């Protein structure tokens, strides 16, 4: 009993001795503003720079789009912010997303080509080419079908952005490796913090930022947009081409490629436009497993056609003239050919040379030069 009392007293005196020793206390977190290099014990007084919440950004729809189309489709879990868009823009041009740091999104989606590739098939980091032409990127916030790629296999722009990073014939990276590189970068953690409130980077945040930037890629100031606004007139050849475009007995282009009230110039749906009698690429059919979808591909927009050559999902046509000739005399029958393809047995709508020239003149009025030179869309670094 006595012995125990002595032990307790001893322990008491040790603890008293320790507390009176006064180990330096203070903020021990090196990332804090008031980090104390002498402090050995954290006293909970660390103060940090307060990162402001991201600033909401509202898409500015150009006249023709705001006039006639529903509000843009923005997912609730990825609202647009200035910081998110700026981060997405930097990531769009970021070669660290590829395994050997040689290519970025912009390598195959070049602004001067309305964010597609002028190569028939883009070449990945290992020098391997794909089997489909890169798609142009514009006005995607108004694509309500929300399916991307030529075959629509990805849901949403966020879903789309997951794929090229890991595709073995594209960036051939792993998300783990891509994210580690960004995390180790001296700028990205803070940019993610500013955009998403966390400096812990993950692939979900990367694709969210990319999607935010992509939603700002808006084209709405072509000559035809200005014509619809009443700011200029079209010349007789362009007007004639417009009529051919809109005439079911002429080119009948509008059923799939939009009209003045659908200024996206695409229906964003899938069609077999009579390219081949048999398919080496099943397109939509490979995604749905439905043979009725074989040979169908998503309608691309005609906006900025001048910049987006080569044409079709496989980039088989080098010029706009070749495209017009295809619909005029080159159609091939297959069981899933779209009923809107006319006179298939004679190859198509049989436009005469003057009609073809006029149609091309009209199509070129869909060129939006501002879009391909807009500094907001260029490499920020």
């Amino acid at each position, binding site marked *: 009993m006595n012995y125990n009392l002595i032990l307790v007293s001893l322990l008491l005196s040790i603890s008293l001795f320790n507390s009176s020793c006064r180990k330096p206390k203070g903020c021990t977190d090196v990332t804090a503003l008031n980090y104390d290099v002498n402090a050995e014990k954290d006293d909970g007084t660390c103060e940090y720079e307060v990162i402001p919440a991201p600033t909401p950004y509202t898409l500015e729809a150009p006249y023709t789009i705001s006039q*006639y189309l529903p509000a843009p489709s923005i997912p609730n879990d990825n609202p647009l912010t200035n910081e998110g868009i700026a981060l997405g823009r930097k990531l769009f041009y970021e070669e660290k997303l590829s395994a050997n740091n040689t290519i970025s999104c912009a390598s195959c989606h070049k602004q001067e080509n309305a964010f597609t590739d002028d190569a028939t098939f883009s070449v990945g980091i290992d020098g391997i080419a794909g089997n489909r032409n890169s798609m142009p990127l514009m006005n995607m916030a108004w694509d*309500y079908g929300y399916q991307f790629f030529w075959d629509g296999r990805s849901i949403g722009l966020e879903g789309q952005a997951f794929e090229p990073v890991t595709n073995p014939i594209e960036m051939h990276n792993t998300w783990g490796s891509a994210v580690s590189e960004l995390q180790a970068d001296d700028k990205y953690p803070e940019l993610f913090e500013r955009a998403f409130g966390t400096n812990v980077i993950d692939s979900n945040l990367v694709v969210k930022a990319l999607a935010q930037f992509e939603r700002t890629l808006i084209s709405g100031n072509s000559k035809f947009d200005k014509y619809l606004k009443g700011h200029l007139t079209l010349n007789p050849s362009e007007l004639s081409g417009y009529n051919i475009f809109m005439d079911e007995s002429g080119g009948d282009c509008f059923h*799939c490629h939009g*009209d003045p009230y659908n200024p996206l110039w695409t229906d964003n749906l899938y069609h077999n436009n009579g390219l081949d009698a048999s398919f080496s690429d099943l397109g939509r059919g490979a995604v749905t497993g439905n043979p009725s979808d074989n040979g169908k591909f998503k309608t691309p927009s005609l906006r900025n056609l001048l910049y987006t050559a080569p044409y079709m999902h496989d980039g088989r046509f080098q010029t706009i003239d070749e495209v017009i000739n295809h619909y005029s005399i080159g159609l091939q029958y297959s069981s*899933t050919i779209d*009923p809107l393809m006319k006179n298939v047995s004679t190859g198509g709508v049989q436009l005469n040379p003057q009609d073809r020239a006029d149609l091309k003149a009209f199509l070129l009025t869909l060129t939006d030069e501002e879009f391909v030179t807009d500094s907001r869309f260029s490499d920020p670094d």
Partner: protein
Amino acid sequence: MKNTKIIIAGIIGLSLAFGTTSCKKKGCTDADATNYDANAKKDDGTCEFDTITGHGDHNGVHVMMKMEHNYGGSSVMPADFDDLKYLNDKGTTHSITKLQYLISDFVLYKADGDSIVVEGYNFVDFDNTNSFAYSFPTEMHVPIGGYTGVGFTWGFDEADNTSGTYADLNVASWSWPAMIGGGYHFMKLEGKFIDSNTDTTAFAFHNGTASNNGNHEANHFYVKLNQSFTLSNDASINLNMDLSEWFKNPNQWDLDALHDMLMPNYTVQKMMNANGRSVFSLGSIVQ
């Protein structure tokens, strides 16, 4: 769309008086309209209906229209698309690959002579089977009681058929070209058929404004389906579209001759208008 409104007797009297002083040949040709003109041979879009909204009638019920589709009695669902399995009245085998259509301004005809008009439209699209159901606005309480029938407008009437007005239809590339009258498509019915050379050929049976060398003629029509029923509860009213009727009555359709470039063809557009009148029937009413 216009708001549903109550038209009071004084205004009706006024418009009737005005109607009779103007040209006798044109006027309201709908026998159910309050200003029906028995002498009118051509509808001029002035029909007015005695309408009540039912707003605030808390004894009222909610009503939903449900579109069902058949081909000569056999049900047609999206899964039936693409197969060459339909035989039209002329004996031509064909498939359906696309069906979209527009109906607007539903009317419920009450036994006491009043009509309830629901201004609005339903864009039915086989790629979106949710569009088969069309609920009347939730704030709308339809009075319980006896009814004699259901009606609606095929497509848009002139007042509603204005280009660029409806964002959802614009983005669906549903516009009807200005050169043949503008406004919107009323229907896109597409498919393939076995032609007289036994080749498989496409058809695109698109309906909208009828245009004859720059003269544009409204091409909607009113459908009234007579059937007595009593509404006592929230109800789902089935409307049937028999697709075979588009190729049958009164104009037996020759797909070999009429399969594409039908939009700018005035005669063909009026033939579709005539055939469309027997396409619909009233199905079961579930409540």
